[in-house]
């Protein structure tokens, strides 16, 4: 597996003048091909959009001293993709998946998974802002401390909102929340677990199949409005929405808002509580 280091003499991904096999070696190496380990670590020249869909890298690392923007790179990565950026990065999976994406951007940078039919198998957001455009699928999303916002696309299979703020317009098959979650638009959830430390705002009209609010968790609605993060604005939709099954624990709060318009298909199970 060969290394490719971005040297950034111009903005063209495929120009051999931009690539070398070592951080300080001569440029003139071929642009990254499948199985390469690619490092974009320094320089301030923006990288123009390029579709390398057929390429499946071994790894891709974007470091915090690269201060340019990546304006749209479409590529698959079999191993780990690390985005530790200080400026905006637009990226999308190629023909094959991005298997393991880890984002810890800083300084207001936004990582954008742009529209397309690609799949990110697992994504971990530690810090910074990650925006997912419509079309891009993330199978398992783990927000540990950043701002995650999506503007469409396929529902997450599993959305673990463990830290930071998660804003979704689509929802998830399973939501496990211990942090702030704001669901807007058509967001729907097959299962939503709202745990201690989480405030889950369902400002959406999508159905919630089964929601459980555990002790210390809060599920609420909010007035319609707009929420902006990462340069993307999503519009919240007002109720009504349907909740098929629900459980509210002692110490938890399930949609107690006075103005909420919710249809409960089945009576709420209340555990450790008396009365409504």
């Amino acid at each position, binding site marked *: 597996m060969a290394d490719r280091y971005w040297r950034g003499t111009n903005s063209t991904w495929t120009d051999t003048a931009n690539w070398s096999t070592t951080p300080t070696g001569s440029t003139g190496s071929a642009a990254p091909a499948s199985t390469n380990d690619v490092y974009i670590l320094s320089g301030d020249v923006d990288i123009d959009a390029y579709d390398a869909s057929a390429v499946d890298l071994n790894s891709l690392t974007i470091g915090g001293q690269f201060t340019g923007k990546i304006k749209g790179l479409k590529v698959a990565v079999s191993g780990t993709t690390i985005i530790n950026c200080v400026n905006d990065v637009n990226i999308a999976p190629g023909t094959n998946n991005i298997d393991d994406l880890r984002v810890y951007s800083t300084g207001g940078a936004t990582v954008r998974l742009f529209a397309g039919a690609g799949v990110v198998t697992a994504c971990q957001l530690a810090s910074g802002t990650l925006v997912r455009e419509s079309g891009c699928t993330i199978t398992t999303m783990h927000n540990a401390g950043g701002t995650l916002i999506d503007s469409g696309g396929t529902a997450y299979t599993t959305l673990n909102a463990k830290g930071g703020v998660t804003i979704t317009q689509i929802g998830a098959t399973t939501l496990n929340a211990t942090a702030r979650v704001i669901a807007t638009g058509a967001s729907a959830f097959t299962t939503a677990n709202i745990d201690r430390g989480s405030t889950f705002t369902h400002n959406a009209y999508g159905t919630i199949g089964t929601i459980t609010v555990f002790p210390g968790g809060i599920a609420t609605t909010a007035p319609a409005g707009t929420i902006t993060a990462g340069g993307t604005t999503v519009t919240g939709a007002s109720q009504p929405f349907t909740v098929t099954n629900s459980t509210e*624990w002692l110490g938890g709060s399930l949609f107690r808002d006075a103005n909420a318009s919710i249809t409960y298909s089945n009576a709420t199970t209340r555990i450790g509580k008396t009365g409504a």
Partner: protein
Amino acid sequence: MPKYFTRLSGTGAFAASGSWASATTLASALTIGSNCAPPTSNDEAYILVGKCNISNSLNTSGFTGALTIGPGFAGTIGTAAGSALDFPSGVLKVQHSGTGAFVNFKGTVSRYDILGTGPAYIKTSTFLSGSTVYVGPGANVEFDTGAKPEKVYNAGGFVSCGTSGAVDVTNHDGTFESQGPITGTLDVRGGDAVVYNTATVSNVYVGNGARYNHASVGTISFVEVYPNGTAVDRGAPGPFTVTGGNIWPNASLFQNPQVTITYTNPIGRRGMP
């Protein structure tokens, strides 16, 4: 102006003038090679690229700033035998995002951010009150016997504490384990946590879907297991004592009949008739 470590391969030295360049960018620093003293005072120091094994001149005395190890660094820091990069003067922050086989640290650090896929080993250290260790998803950090972190936030990595244990730990996800006591609070909000041997635990909270394993004979002062949380005692080497606690419905609290547990106070039942 930041200082960049510019040795890219072979064996390197941290506190050596020939290893560092002061420049506005990494690219400039790599071109310069070396032009400055090693990090000192409140410098911002960066190790961002290359596969150098930094195993010499590991005492950073006088350096009190911040060290950032970027994801493009695939080398090692310290030695496989255990020598560590030492921060005797107290640095503000160490951020590790590297991917190498290991990095070893010790000394006084106000904040660690361990984010990279390369494991970090933290040797004998002083953790001041309020100092924090943040462990990102997929990261791996191991504290040595002489290191007792103040506040640990595990967001999905693997954290292992030695016989000194830790003060406060919040395990949002991933795995936390300790050979020593937890003298503050172990809040297992997700993932798994386990304590071994004779480790005592002052307060342990086990949330929905989380699992706590008390594989120890040490006393638990207070345990609360929330709905769908699980507290087990798999591998406990003998009897232990629980001073107080609460259990919620659908939670499981020490169901293993083979371990004798002495409850000095009744366990409160929350959310039950």
